[in-house]
């Protein structure tokens, strides 16, 4: 392969001859257009530019991009370019590149944002996101009203499918997590309680913790990662494919059709899963308790039954309903406000999970304070 050379020769009558030789291929060392560009900036300007490519070997994009740089500079300096000396293909490519003029104002100019500006921008963005969430809640409430009146359009088979996905199919993971959480509670509690001979109260600890708080929270977080993310991804993808728009044009409210049935499915399934999770947690605790304590199964069971009040149970189930609403809300809202690319679907899904978990933890704290004050 011959080395690519670009030489500039001052021609007669103030013209400028550019001689190209060697192989001009992308990826090999190419001489830049700088000598030509420098010459074009200097006065007196050449009257015209001409090329000589008799010694030119193979060429590809490497040559054409250099020619384009020269052409742009020549245009800016008002120098005429005579491209007759170029190979036909390269001449056509250069002509093609300049065939469509750059659209006015199309190019993006990036400027560095000032610190305060970016702080302001993110505050405004947060406000907008907050308003979007409120709007969404409002629309959901209106949709529930339509469901109660029986004027909403939805598919009953969809609701059943959502219930199956959010309920029955979540059984294995809820079992595993709650069982292990129960075991961990029993372990930690038992070692501390045995220090002053109150080992049997491990049963109380595990039962109360699971029923009042932990089962609902763990199920909620599992649902945020499992079902909330799925909702955001499903609705988000439908949004990208304009399926949501297709529903709207048919006169079907996408909230009624897509969102409310999903929220309903979680409201129904969350308490059931939580109840089941509590049971699994208590069993997990019992496995540890019975193997480390000198207690019979009957003793442990009686201790457990006496520890759990109906108030605690209903308190826990109420929390689970709240978490279910929040998780479904976060998932569906993020799906409905999803952008229109694969990337945006990913971002919405991430946000749905994060938002779901944050909302669960926030509401858990608030509800616990309320419960304590009400004496539940």
């Amino acid at each position, binding site marked *: 392969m011959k080395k690519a050379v670009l030489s500039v020769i001052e021609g007669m009558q103030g013209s400028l001859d550019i001689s190209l030789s060697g192989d001009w291929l*992308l*990826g090999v060392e190419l001489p830049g257009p700088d000598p030509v560009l420098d010459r074009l900036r200097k006065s007196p300007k050449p009257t015209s530019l001409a090329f000589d490519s008799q010694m030119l070997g193979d060429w*590809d*994009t490497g040559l*054409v*991009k250099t020619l*384009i*740089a020269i052409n742009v500079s020549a245009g800016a300096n008002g120098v005429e370019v005579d491209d007759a000396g170029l190979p*036909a*293909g*390269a*001449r*056509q*490519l250069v002509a*093609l*590149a*300049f*065939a*469509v*003029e*750059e*659209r006015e104002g*199309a*190019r*993006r100019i*990036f400027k560095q944002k000032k610190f305060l500006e970016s702080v302001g921008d993110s505050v405004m963005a947060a406000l907008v996101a907050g308003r979007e969430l409120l709007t969404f809640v409002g629309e959901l409430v209106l949709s529930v009203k339509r469901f109660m009146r029986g004027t909403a359009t939805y598919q009953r088979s969809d609701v059943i499918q959502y219930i199956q996905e959010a309920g029955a199919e979540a059984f294995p993971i809820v079992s595993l997590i709650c069982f292990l959480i129960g075991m961990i509670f029993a372990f930690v509690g038992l070692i501390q309680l045995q220090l002053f001979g109150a080992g049997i109260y491990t049963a109380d600890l595990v039962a109360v913790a699971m029923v009042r708080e932990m089962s609902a929270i763990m199920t909620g977080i599992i649902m945020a990662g499992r079902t909330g993310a799925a909702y955001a991804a499903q609705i988000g993808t439908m949004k990208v494919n304009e399926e949501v728009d297709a529903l709207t044009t048919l006169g079907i409210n996408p909230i009624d059709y897509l969102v409310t049935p999903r929220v309903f499915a979680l409201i129904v399934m969350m308490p059931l899963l939580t109840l089941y999770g509590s049971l699994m947690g208590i069993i997990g605790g019992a496995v540890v308790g019975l193997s480390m304590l000198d207690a019979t199964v009957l003793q442990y069971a009686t201790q457990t039954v006496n520890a759990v009040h109906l108030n605690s149970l209903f308190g826990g189930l109420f929390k689970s309903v709240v978490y279910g609403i929040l998780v479904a809300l976060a998932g569906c809202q993020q799906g409905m406000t999803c*952008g*229109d*690319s*694969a*990337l*945006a679907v990913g971002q919405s899904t991430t946000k749905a999970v994060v938002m779901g978990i944050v909302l669960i933890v926030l509401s858990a704290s608030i509800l616990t304070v309320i419960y304590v004050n009400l004496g539940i």
Partner: protein
Amino acid sequence: MADARPHIIAKDLTMAYGDFLIQKDLNFTINRGDVFIIMGGSGCGKSTLLKIMIGLKTPATGEVFYDGEPFWASSLSDREATKRKFGTLFQSGALWSSMTLAENISLALQQYTELGDAEIREVAAYKLMLVGLAGFEDYYPSEISGGMKKRAGLARAMALDPEILFFDEPSAGLDPISAKLLDDLILELRESLGTTVVIVTHELASIFAIGNNSVFLDTVTKTQLATGNPRELRDHHPNFEVRNFLQRGEAEDKAA
């Protein structure tokens, strides 16, 4: 450049999805610099044939030869090397939505060349100029129109100066004028770069405007009915189906 050997040869290709036969006994030759059209009715397996040619789907039997070298019988690394000579424009552009147009074009350059960032950016800008998208480097695919996406897809397909360009329905979803401009662009690029072009289409206007070689796939007999210059096939081919397709269903049945 002037290589008399055929560029691509398909030999006894049979394609199937599992037990479901799509097409059998496909034999055709594509010369260097041809604009080769793969045509046929909807669902006859045009796109599947393209997928086999670019290495996305394995043929049931048969072989595709590039420059005389078998494609599917060669080792994985040889096949990868052959694929690097291809540029493909997918039906709806298939631009990566998380990347700007410039980044879409740059990916192949970053992977397969030693160029620096500034140079890659320069090449990307030039490729976009070629397809009439000067100044759109920093746009995301979701911010431009369907026709622009197609052209940006073409710019990406040409990133590595491919020897063969594959197009899947380039004019689908474009208005007649944009479709015509895209056809012109394909022709101009072929003329100036000497690229071999393979196009899947059933757009008659494009077929006659740019094609100089073709294969006609039939849905009923599940094999090719004709190969050759589409204009000659339209006027002189003995088979009624072929003429009828190329004359928009208005051919006279000579046998009848």
